[in-house]
């Protein structure tokens, strides 16, 4: 760990470039399915194979999704934008160039509200968003011929991407993590992408530099690639910050270069220097006319945008009276938010709904995910309406909180309704004062020493009596009634 004094001396400056694969039905420039996991080279045609004579034609659906992303991040959408060719040779790039947007992207100047775990909010400005096509994939391993050669799978070639470039506004690894979390939430809400980093539908490169706090000029940056999780983004940034601070402290210069993060060693290593950087020879793609997004297209897309995380967060706080932090957690994905809201509405108790979802539901979810992988809220055995019913049972005094937790675990395993469980198992709360008073009499009669202690003025021992009575009633007695009756009985004893 870097010493605190150095940490105070140097500020880290981070900009992130996020590649997001959009969930369109077809590829960006042809009608091949935008599917993954199929047998190699099955979702291909002359266009995405880059066969001579084939021409790209832009997908309207892809532009609409890209437009959603831009509108959801408050970008300025440009009516006319231009596609360009980025030229380089690589076996996964069948045309020898990638069709991308360069000097005239469709969207610029957006913003993302990032919320850190401690609740601090931070606005990260976006430089631009542009559309581009994905390349194919090289297959180096796992085939009978892998010893002698590599294969090329072009199923992904031509898949639609947006690249979201932030301004260098990020100042810590935590902020980077928070920004990515918020960005992902927006993109998932807006139905642009499933943003799954493991499946490669979200990819991130980090531009990292350091400067003495208070300095105006940025330091020389390194671009870090191969970041395959939010956690690794944060770790790589932290490593890179320390590496650069050490360099500067030792009187060396940071070189502009591309570095690769190695998760197994938790370090970055030089991949290529600025001198070796490709000259991509960008020029306007002559096969595609300028892309025109008119006011109607923009307007329709904006009107169809769902409520976004920040708006939902604010509404949850106002409507259900829950804390900002809870609202932030509950709006991380649309699924959780919808689940919560149904519980809150059905139970009429937003705070309880929030507590149940954030503790019991999320804990069970986590357990399930660790054993089964991705789990969707809609597939859970507990439906929001059932959880709402459980909360109503507590609120009406039919069961107590302790019983409710038992009922919850039974609901989780069996999927039964809480009422059915309570009735079958006879778990309803005992509020019958006669039964409770009988139990109190027994306890007082069998505990003269404790009664004497209480009588000496140690009134805080009342809890012990309450516990004994609860035990006698199988935990089902209404604790508030027990408390009141015990006090009355002891004072009268």
């Amino acid at each position: 760990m870097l010493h605190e004094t150095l940490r105070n001396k140097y500020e880290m400056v981070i900009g992130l470039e996020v590649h997001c694969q959009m969930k369109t039905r077809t590829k960006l420039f042809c009608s091949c399915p935008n599917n993954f996991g199929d047998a190699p080279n099955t979702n291909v045609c002359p266009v995405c194979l880059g066969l001579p004579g084939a021409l790209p034609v832009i997908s309207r659906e892809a532009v609409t999704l890209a437009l959603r992303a831009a509108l959801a991040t408050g970008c300025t959408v440009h009516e006319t934008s231009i596609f360009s060719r980025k030229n380089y040779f690589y076996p996964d790039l069948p045309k020898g160039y990638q069709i991308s947007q360069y000097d005239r992207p469709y969207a610029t100047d957006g913003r993302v509200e990032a919320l850190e775990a401690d609740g601090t909010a931070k606005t990260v400005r976006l430089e631009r968003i542009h559309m581009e096509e994905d390349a194919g994939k090289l297959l180096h391993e796992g085939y009978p011929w892998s010893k002698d050669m590599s294969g090329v799978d072009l199923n992904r070639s031509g898949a639609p991407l947006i690249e979201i470039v932030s301004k260098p506004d990020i100042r810590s690894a935590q902020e980077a993590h928070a920004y990515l979390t918020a960005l992902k939430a927006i993109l998932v809400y807006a139905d642009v992408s499933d943003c799954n980093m493991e499946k490669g539908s979200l990819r991130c490169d980090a531009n990292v530099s350091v400067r003495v706090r208070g300095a105006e000029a940025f330091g020389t940056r390194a671009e870090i690639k191969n970041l395959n999780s939010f956690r690794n983004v944060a770790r790589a940034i932290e490593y890179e910050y320390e590496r650069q601070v050490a360099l500067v402290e030792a009187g060396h210069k940071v070189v502009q270069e591309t570095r690769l993060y190695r998760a197994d060693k938790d370090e970055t290593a030089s991949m290529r220097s600025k001198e070796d950087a490709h000259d991509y020879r960008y020029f306007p793609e002559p096969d595609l006319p300028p892309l025109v997004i008119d006011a109607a297209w923009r307007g329709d897309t904006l009107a169809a945008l769902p409520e976004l995380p920040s708006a939902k967060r604010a509404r949850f706080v106002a409507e259900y009276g829950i804390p900002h932090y809870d609202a932030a957690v509950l709006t991380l994905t649309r699924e959780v938010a919808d689940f919560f809201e149904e519980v809150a509405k059905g139970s009429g108790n937003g705070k309880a709904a929030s507590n149940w979802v954030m503790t019991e539901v999320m804990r069970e979810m986590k357990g399930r995910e660790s054993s089964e992988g991705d789990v969707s809220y809609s597939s859970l055995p507990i439906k929001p309406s059932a959880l709402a019913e459980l909360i109503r049972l507590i609120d009406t005094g039919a069961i107590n909180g302790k019983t409710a937790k038992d009922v919850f675990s039974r609901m989780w395993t069996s999927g039964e309704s809480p009422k059915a469980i309570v009735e079958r198992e006879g778990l309803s709360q005992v509020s019958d004062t006669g039964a409770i008073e009988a139990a109190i009499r027994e306890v007082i009669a069998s505990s003269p020493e404790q009664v004497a202690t209480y009588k000496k003025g140690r009134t805080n021992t009342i809890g012990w009596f309450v516990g004994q009575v609860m035990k006698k009633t199988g935990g089902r007695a209404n604790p508030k009634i027990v408390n009141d009756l015990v006090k009355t009985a002891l004072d009268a004893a």
Partner: protein
Amino acid sequence: MSGLTSMGMGELAAAIKAKKTSASEVVDAHLSRIAEKDASIGAFLSRDDDRARADAKEVDARLARGEDPGALAGVPIAIKDVIHVKGLATTCGSKILNRFATPYDATVIRRLRNAGAIVLGKLNMDEFAMGSSNENSAFGPVRNPWDLTRVPGGSSGGSAAAVSARFAAMALGSDTGGSIRQPAAFCGVVGLKPTYGRVSRYGLVAFASSLDQIGPLTRSCADAALSLSVIAGQDVHDATSSPRVVEDYGAALGESARGLRIGVPRDFLKGVDAGVMAEFDKSIAALQADGAAIVDIALPNAPHAIATYYLVATAEASSNLARFDGVRYGLRTESAASKSSLKDMYGETRDAGFGPEVKRRIILGTFVLSSGYYDAYYLRAQKVRTLIRRDFETAFASCDVIATPTTPSPAFKLGEKTANPLEMYLADVFTVPANLAGVPGLSVPCGFSNGLPVGLQFVGPMFQEATLLRAGHALERLMGAAAAQPPV
């Protein structure tokens, strides 16, 4: 029926439909002529005679069933080997494609087949359409049917020679800087480069995407009109194809040049061979006598067209030809070094696969797009291109079409200009401006100089092919040069 190989497309289709002859008879007549004569010309790179005969039989069978096989029923055509025809290899006149077996038909081929045309085979060309003499073909030169010691022009040299030699009633060519019009002029046939966007480029192997257009080479303007009516129109596979409605170009041919305002840019017509100039002047006089108004116009930026063209076209070509890398299809050179290094494989494959002119242009194009040079070359060229386009717009305010010689000289000797690429490039001086501006151009035979055909070029405003064809049709009638047959 005799004389089948000299008939026009409309005439042939009509005779076949009227059962005066059959598609099979027509195709056989052409195939035997090719078999007999093409050894001395070298127009064809590949043929599928069996497929052509089967297609002809199918047309005849449809007619027998009372169906209409289309406007080009049984008309034999041939295709420049830069346009994909499923079932035939595409070579682009290059070794690097290694007789690439294309899995799809170009849109133009689909349209022609739907109209009943019979594809006889693929035609020789300058490698990747880069050249003005057909001498850049990796598969040997094509000879001019009018004089076997001379070039047919290029890059659609095989197309012009095939139509001139009566091997096919029509041939498709592609025109990036004059590649249809210049060989048409050299071989004494009609060549039309449509407006950019009028004909789909899907299935045309790209040389320079913002300049390339497919067009017909025929023996009359009426045939060019008929061909264009079939191949033109928007295509969902080509985003640069125009949604504009396709006209009936044949109906617009008219009877004379009366009322047509023909602009002549005299200042631009420097360094033209005296024989060519004489034929050009005679044609202009004849058009005037026929009722056309001759207007003096200026194209002040046209002299910069060649320089501009060699920046724009090479830049785009350097990118378009990057896909020929030996990874997925075509040639792959595998020496010991290239087996272990990807870079070596790329280098060796491209070195062995591309000819010298293609390499020259890839290098030039790569250079003009390079960081630090882009603004000075590519961007500047685009600006000059805009000026050239404006020159045309200004000129078309005072005339309907512009007339120039198609080429500064008639067909030159094989080998005459191969040592000097710059001199070769100047063969396109009058044709290149139309590509840079996107406007249509038509070359029509207008006479002979020392026994060699001379072409006159009409250039028109965007999408005014009908006007061009009307002017060309009038010129054909006035000069009678299109009817002449080569000695082959």
